């Protein structure tokens, strides 16, 4: 077997070992350790493969870029995993299956980000979304979680149907399901261009569902609120990362930016996502819904990267810069988001902005961490989020996309308002001291907070090491 498949293979072995262990004896701590060990080994293998990976076969492409994305994915999942044990202890369910489904979603994400074929992409997507249904509806009797699970089931089935239809039409034109054969060949044009554009729009619709971009964003807030907290974190990071990478690869490999209408659709969706996401977040009281709306806006910003893709050989240097922008933004946003969610996991009773009141005076470390993470999401200087936005604006200026750029600036200002509201809420005098007393502020969560702070502020102040690394892999 190809050495590049080892990370996913290790995760699969971990999942199967948990399954075997379940046959004999249920033990929460053993499942936790097995899943952690397999994640850690997979991460190490992926780190080792970073310098060696450069192969591609029918189903998968494994080069420095996909390997970097897999590494990012495994790191994000590892950070979420670190919080899993304490959180699962609080729920009143059998806990071991959660680790199984958790590992399965990770495998699905890994398959998706390195897939080079519609079949592997689709199976990875289905593996991920089927496991997500289990993760969302995990806390059985909870009405809201079940509702969210049903919603996700129906919407992901719908999205998959759209993607399949698009893939079928593209197959009719190109005679192959491989991504590398998506290059349009004008000599053998079987279908009229509008049919291909329809197929592209079908695939976009499916992926926009997963990314919760504007016309398909209605589910995301209910899901974030209804799903268990860890699942919401996974949905916001893993699922969106995998879907965005696929979208980016498809647009790049298929030269889809040659159709002007596709460019128009992308810029419209980007602008609408920025504004609607930020406006919906503006007066939102519920913290998780606020994060959901903020993620709509952030993926709207990221769509700018797709508008920048330009396959002219002359502008190859700018092409590499766009890839750097994409990776830097993804790293910055995902780490910040994981940080925010791990803070939320440490504050189990706090659901709304009013509950946050007085957090700063009782638990200053948690409050300061959350404060800095919010500033990073808003893009204030000296944080990682600022550097990411700086990259994005630089790239947009270099290709003179003034319309989306002005939308980016305006909606960022709107977004700043609600990120600052969270910080203001923490500084108020507390209304209900009881809730704040129950906060879990153990040593392990403290060290995790410090790690996240180190990542967000450290790379924000000294971004050069990260950007050099990204430059290396995307050059």
């Amino acid at each position, binding site marked *: 077997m190809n050495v590049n*498949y080892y990370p996913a293979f290790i995760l*699969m072995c971990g*999942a199967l070992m948990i*399954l075997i262990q379940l046959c004999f004896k249920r033990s929460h701590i053993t499942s936790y350790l097995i899943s952690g060990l397999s994640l850690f080994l997979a991460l190490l293998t992926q780190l080792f493969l970073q310098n060696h990976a450069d192969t591609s*076969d*029918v*189903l*998968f492409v494994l080069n420095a870029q996909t390997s970097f994305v897999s590494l990012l994915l495994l790191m994000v999942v590892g950070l979420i995993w670190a919080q899993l044990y304490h959180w699962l202890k609080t729920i009143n*369910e*059998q806990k071991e*299956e959660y680790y*199984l*489904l958790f590992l*399965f979603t990770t*495998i699905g994400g890994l*398959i998706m980000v390195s897939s080079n074929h519609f*079949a*592997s992409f689709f*199976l*990875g997507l*289905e*593996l991920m979304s*089927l*496991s997500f*249904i*289990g993760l969302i*509806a*995990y*806390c*059985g*009797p909870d009405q809201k979680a079940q509702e969210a*699970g049903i919603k996700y089931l129906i919407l992901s089935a719908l999205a998959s149907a759209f993607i399949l239809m698009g893939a079928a039409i593209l197959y009719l034109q190109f005679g192959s399901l491989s991504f590398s054969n998506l290059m349009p060949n004008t000599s053998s044009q079987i279908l009229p261009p509008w049919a291909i554009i329809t197929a592209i729009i079908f695939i976009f619709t499916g992926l926009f569902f997963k990314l919760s971009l504007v016309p398909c964003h209605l589910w995301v807030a209910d899901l974030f609120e209804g799903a268990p907290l860890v699942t919401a974190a996974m949905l916001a990071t893993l699922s969106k990362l995998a879907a965005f990478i696929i979208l980016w690869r498809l647009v790049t490999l298929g030269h889809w930016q040659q159709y002007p209408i596709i460019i128009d659709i992308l810029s419209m969706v980007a602008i609408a996502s920025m504004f609607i996401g930020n406006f919906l977040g503006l007066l939102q009281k519920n913290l998780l819904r606020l994060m959901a709306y903020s993620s709509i806006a952030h993926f709207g910003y990221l769509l700018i990267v797709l508008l920048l893709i330009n396959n002219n050989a002359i502008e190859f240097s700018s092409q590499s810069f766009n890839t750097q922008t994409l990776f830097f933004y993804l790293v910055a946003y995902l780490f910040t988001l994981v940080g925010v969610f791990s803070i939320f996991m440490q504050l189990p009773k706090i659901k709304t902005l009013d509950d946050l009141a007085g957090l700063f005076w009782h638990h200053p470390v948690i409050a300061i961490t959350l404060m800095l993470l919010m500033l990073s999401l808003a893009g204030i200087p000296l944080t990682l989020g600022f550097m990411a936005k700086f990259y994005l604006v630089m790239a947009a200026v270099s290709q003179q996309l003034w319309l989306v750029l002005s939308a980016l600036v305006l909606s960022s200002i709107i977004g700043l308002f609600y990120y600052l509201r969270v910080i203001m809420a923490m500084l108020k005098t507390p209304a209900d001291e009881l809730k704040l007393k129950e906060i879990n502020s153990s040593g392990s969560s403290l060290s995790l907070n410090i790690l996240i702070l180190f990542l967000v502020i450290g790379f924000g102040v000294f971004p050069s090491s990260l950007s050099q690394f990204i430059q290396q892999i995307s050059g």
Partner: protein
Amino acid sequence: MLDNMLNTIFIITAAIILISALLTITAHNVVHALLYLVITMLAVSLIFFILGASFAAALQIIIYAGAIMVLFIFVTMMLHQGEKSLAQERHLFHFSTSITALFLSSMLFFELIFMLFLTPTDSANSRVTAPSSAIITVKDIGTQLYGPYSLLVVISALMLLSALITAIHISKSPVTSEIKTKADNL
């Protein structure tokens, strides 16, 4: 001549697919909807057959039509309530409501008979295949699935496993909580 005939058959089958799919989603009665769904599946399998993918056609019938029928039988068996449900079933299976389904499926049947026995045999082997597509045998599919696409088999196995775990967990948890509340009440 042969191409023309195959094209006609294809168009009739495609029309049957569209009609029965529309009837599936517009039928108010679940049983009727299932009946039309089975016809849709049969028609799709006929199209696979015309294209030369006879294995896919067989799978389509075995998995979709067969599974739906089995599911249907299970549901009727589980919900059986003696005389009351018999009367209900009589009401469900009234002949006049199933006449469209019978008509559509008999059309498919005649098409199949026509293709198998009445088409001229002069054009040698590729009798029931559309031009420019060879017949795909089971062996071809097997070598592909265990050759370059072997990882897909593994991934789909994982997918089914995760779906199974999800289904078991979700269907199990409300029961245990009910038992708990019952025990509390006692």
